[in-house]
């Protein structure tokens, strides 16, 4: 459904996308994961026709997104990163406008609005002014607007940012349902845990490059190992596993394929009264990112924020 090849984009001297290749098939959900500034929004915006790529190929349903953009946009549903609603008209009027612009007749649109509203628990809000909704309600309306014409390719750019738990759950349910009905979904997100919940294929984007793609379990199995963490009162003792052990303050971390065997080996070597806690950390996407990008995920975010602050200050 979506084919991207060698996609490059720079903003002045800043490289946003450095030759991205990506395919998303019908019925597939692909989570586009990366820290702030990784290039997620740029990628989604180019696919949606909102920005021009410097070079590369984007095809949607076999159509060149650059030369046949209007036809391509008929097949796409986009929920941009920032919530976009007309606050001075009702939710229903927002739906009617964007439904008509998507090419749905007014007669067909009325029942479709009810259908989409029901799926996202918005029925009772349809005749409320959009500006009077809560943040979570606005977020749901914002996403629902992208679903009206049952797009063949749904682009969700950080759809759950700032959303409460209920909103997030409903949105993820709708995304799963849409994929089950045959749409392709490119789901850009900042949240590692959300992708693990979604259980979709993951594309990890870092500094404008795809660094890995695969299923969550597959990536974790290939790139991350479980960690046994032992927290001590006072100095961390030498447990004699130098190659696999790292010390971080009062915490001893042991990377291992077999946490139980490691514990059996280590525990007899430490004094019970010095040990505060023992935890087995399940391998996660955070560990995958660390292994492949060479830095912690939240550290990448902090670096990006520092860069933005420096640019603003400069």
């Amino acid at each position: 459904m979506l084919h991207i090849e060698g996609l490059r984009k720079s903003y002045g001297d800043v490289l946003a996308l450095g030759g991205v290749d990506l395919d998303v098939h019908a019925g597939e959900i692909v989570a586009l994961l990366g820290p702030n500034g990784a290039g997620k929004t740029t990628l989604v915006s180019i696919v949606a026709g909102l920005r021009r790529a410097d070079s590369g190929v984007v095809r949607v349903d076999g159509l060149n997104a650059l030369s046949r953009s209007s036809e391509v946009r008929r097949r796409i549903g986009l929920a941009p990163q920032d919530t976009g609603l007309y606050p001075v008209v009702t939710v229903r009027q927002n739906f009617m406008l964007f439904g008509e612009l998507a090419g749905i007749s007014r007669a067909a649109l009325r029942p479709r609005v009810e259908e989409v509203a029901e799926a996202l628990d918005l029925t009772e809000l349809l005749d409320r002014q959009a500006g009077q909704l809560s943040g979570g309600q606005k977020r749901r309306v914002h996403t629902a607007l992208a679903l009206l014409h049952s797009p063949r390719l749904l682009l969700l750019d950080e759809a759950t940012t700032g959303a409460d738990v209920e909103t997030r759950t409903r949105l993820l349910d709708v995304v799963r349902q849409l994929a089950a009905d045959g749409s392709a979904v490119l789901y850009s997100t900042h949240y590692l845990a959300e992708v693990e919940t979604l259980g979709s294929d993951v594309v990890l984007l870092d500094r404008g490059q795809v660094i890995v793609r695969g299923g969550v379990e597959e990536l974790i199995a290939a790139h991350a190992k479980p960690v046994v963490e032992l927290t001590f009162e006072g100095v961390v003792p030498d447990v004699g596993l130098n190659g696999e052990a790292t010390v971080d303050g009062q915490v001893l971390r042991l990377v291992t394929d077999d946490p139980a065997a490691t514990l059996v080996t280590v525990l007899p070597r430490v004094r019970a009264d010095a040990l505060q806690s023992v935890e087995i950390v399940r391998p996660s996407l955070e560990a995958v990112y660390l292994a492949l990008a060479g830095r912690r995920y939240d550290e990448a975010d902090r670096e990006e924020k520092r860069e933005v602050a420096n640019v603003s200050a400069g």
Partner: protein
Amino acid sequence: MYPRASLAVLRHEFRVMLSDPSTAIFVVIVPLVLVALTKDLFANQLSEDGFASANGSEFAVPGMAVAFASFSVGYAGFTFFRDHGWGTWDRLRATPASSVDLMIGKVLPTVTLTVVQLALLFLLGKPLFGLEVSGSILALIVLIVVLALSLSAFGMLVTAISRTMNQLNAIGSVGGMTMAMLGGAWVPVSAMPGWAAAIAPAIPTYWAMKGFQSVILEDGGITDVAGAILVMIGFGVLFTVLAAWKFRFEDAKVYFG
């Protein structure tokens, strides 16, 4: 082009406009007050210009109508900046509607507002101020429509070159006001200093005022105002071409700041 899309945007823009009708009310009520205040002043000037029986409304009504129609320059741009502020601009652009569809849908309501405003002032001019139109009503209507199109096209040009709402306000308001003043909407060209009178024909509103004067005071018909209409169409085309050249749909516009 996808006419249904233009129609959907147009309908929506009217709905948004009516959700806060203060602008529409302002551009009708305030000029009426100003006509009441200034009408008598202009009676003397018109008398000196050879229209001895004029009561002043013959200049005050079209003058104030044109002056306040110039606010549509800023309003045309506001409809775009507002969408950037509400986050709906990218949403609109991501729909199958073309740039032309969006432009038509967003600009036509401003044109309509200006036409209605001008028409209302002329209609109320008779019962409130004794305004008599001696010439062709059809010519008056054509002048009104062409002026509204020309001002909205100028509004698009100002929008295209403005990056922030502040710039739009400054260029739109000051530009619109200057255009009205230099065009002879506030003061008759015959009473303006020589240098100002010399540059007045380079302003679209001059031609609107010239046309209105012909229709109201000189029994003017379509053929009498054809020149003024053609010049205003020329300005409209020029502004549209420049706006199309400078307008970048993908550029972010700053709603605040």
